[in-house]
């Protein structure tokens, strides 16, 4: 190996010095707990004490009564959340962004209006909508006045609708994000592309679908990946609006709320925790999120090359 020049060596030392503070904090509070959690999911736990190695024992317990129903229920709620947000937030946001793109000046102003809920804490958003959707709340009043509904509005305690209502509120909260990303992507496409398509007689929908979208794969990739990561990390809105049990009757239970109950106990300090099961669930979720994210990014990468 060639000896490094003294200047090279000095830079090398400087680099280490520069990186070390960030690396120490990041390694200590992110990487270390993560690795220890993954490792710990293969051990038996008594309370907060780690006992012997049991291989996949904790994972097996995820798939038997009574955990199996909670686990699969929460998993499918997360999957529904991802696809629900993809449609109600991201696809709708794409249409909004397209409409805003053609309305130059006023479009920018509306983008900022649409984004405002995204700077609010999901806790504030959840509490606000919990009151608006409660019996006697604004939504009931509006629906009753318009003659679309009669009597008490109980969507939040109705297991048929509750999950969809929460998704809609999440979409209300974050609609501005896909709108901003897609609007920026539209602006990067040269206007001549649109002009040429117009002259060729393509209508608006056709321009959007076959000309703009293939050029916007990087933006679609970011939005889809962000939606995926956020869907499987969802917690705050459910906790604030339906409690940590995912009321009514676990209809809005998600993997992270399930994890929270296993790791820290339910509200009211029933205090029954199951660390082994919590860590196993954490490992499963870790695999879902990392593998899913990598697969999504690779699929979009390939689409970009072909496009």
């Amino acid at each position, binding site marked *: 190996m060639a000896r490094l020049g003294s200047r090279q060596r000095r*830079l*090398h030392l*400087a*680099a280490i010095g*520069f*990186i070390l*503070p*960030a*690396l120490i*904090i*990041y390694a*200590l509070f*992110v990487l*270390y*707990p*993560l690795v220890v*959690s993954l490792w710990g999911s293969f051990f038996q736990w008594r309370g907060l004490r780690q006992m012997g190695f049991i291989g996949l024992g904790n994972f097996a317990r995820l798939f038997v009564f009574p955990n199996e129903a909670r686990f699969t229920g929460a998993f499918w709620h997360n999957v529904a959340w991802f696809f629900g947000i993809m449609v109600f937030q991201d696809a709708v946001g794409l*249409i*909004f962004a397209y*409409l*805003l793109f053609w*309305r130059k000046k006023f479009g*920018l102003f*509306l983008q*900022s209006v*649409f*984004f*405002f809920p995204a*700077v609010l*804490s999901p*806790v*504030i958003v959840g*509490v*606000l909508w919990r*009151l608006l959707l409660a019996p*006697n709340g*604004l939504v009931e009043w509006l629906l009753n006045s318009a003659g679309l509904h009669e009597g008490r509005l109980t969507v939040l305690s109705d297991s048929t609708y509750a999950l969809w209502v929460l998704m809609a509120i999440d979409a*209300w909260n974050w609609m501005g*994000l896909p709108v*901003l*990303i897609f609007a*920026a*992507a539209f*602006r*990067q496409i040269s206007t001549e592309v649109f002009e040429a398509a117009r002259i060729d007689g393509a209508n608006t929908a056709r321009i959007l679908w076959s000309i703009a979208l293939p050029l*916007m794969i*990087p933006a679609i*990739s970011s*939005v889809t990946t*962000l939606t995926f*990561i956020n869907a499987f990390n969802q*917690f*705050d809105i459910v*906790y*604030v609006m339906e409690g940590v049990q995912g009321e009514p009757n676990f209809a809005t239970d998600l993997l*992270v709320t399930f*994890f929270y109950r296993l790791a820290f106990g339910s509200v009211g300090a029933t205090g029954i925790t199951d660390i082994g099961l919590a860590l196993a669930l*954490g490992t499963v979720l870790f695999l879902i*999120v*990392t593998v899913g994210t990598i697969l999504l990014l690779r699929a979009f990468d390939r689409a970009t090359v072909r496009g």
Partner: protein
Amino acid sequence: MRFSAFLKTLPGWVVLLLWTVVVLLPLYALVISCFKSTAEIYADPLGLPPRWDAGNFANAWFTLNLGRNLVNSLIITVGAVIVTILVSAMAAYPLSRYDLKWGPWMLLLFLAGIMLPIRLASVELFNLVKALGLIDNLFGLVLVYIAVRIPFAVFIFANFMRTLPRELEEAARIDGAGEVRILFQVILPMVIPAVSIVAIFTSIAVWNDFFFPLIFIFSDENKTVPLSIAGFIGQYRTDWGTIFASLGISLAPVLAMYLILARQIREGIGTTGATK
């Protein structure tokens, strides 16, 4: 001709107007409900309050100790933002501008943190914070937030620093400037947009976070605004006027910041999200 052109854009305007109403109506209801009694909210949720009575605000302020919560949130946010910017800019500088064999791997290690679901490690994180004696402590919360926000910050700084011309630091080196001086006096002033993107997104994420205070904070005097509000709705669920006022108070600083920074936020998200 002109009228028919307008007619063609009309459906688009209707759609956009509809969503504007969906966004603004709940916020309007929030603001006017702050000044009403619960009975008045039930009776007429959209009407202006009969009198502009600040009683709800006083009630919310004192029963929740909101002043203290706001100060806590502010301390945590400012602390986390400053340190995150400092250590991330330092780490991004050699990773984006030096010729290091292990540089790309180190960068990848940092960037992996953007997608790592750190909430799932919260049991071990709790044990760690406890071992450090930082449970129910604002400083412990700040450390966790810095660690969680470093990956995104390094990503942004590295992307911005990579585009600067090489001659920049070469000239400074020939003049005999040390590496620390080059970073803070030559490179950092050139990436001010990156600093503002990191500052804005870190402060939004930290100010709004609920999960970590829920796990790490127990005493009332250390609660942040979201934690305090979430506990409040459980206890006082029937006193709507006061709950709305508490939302109003916690929303006010965010709204003020948004009115000032809306353009930067819009452009910041556009540049980071639409490209790779």
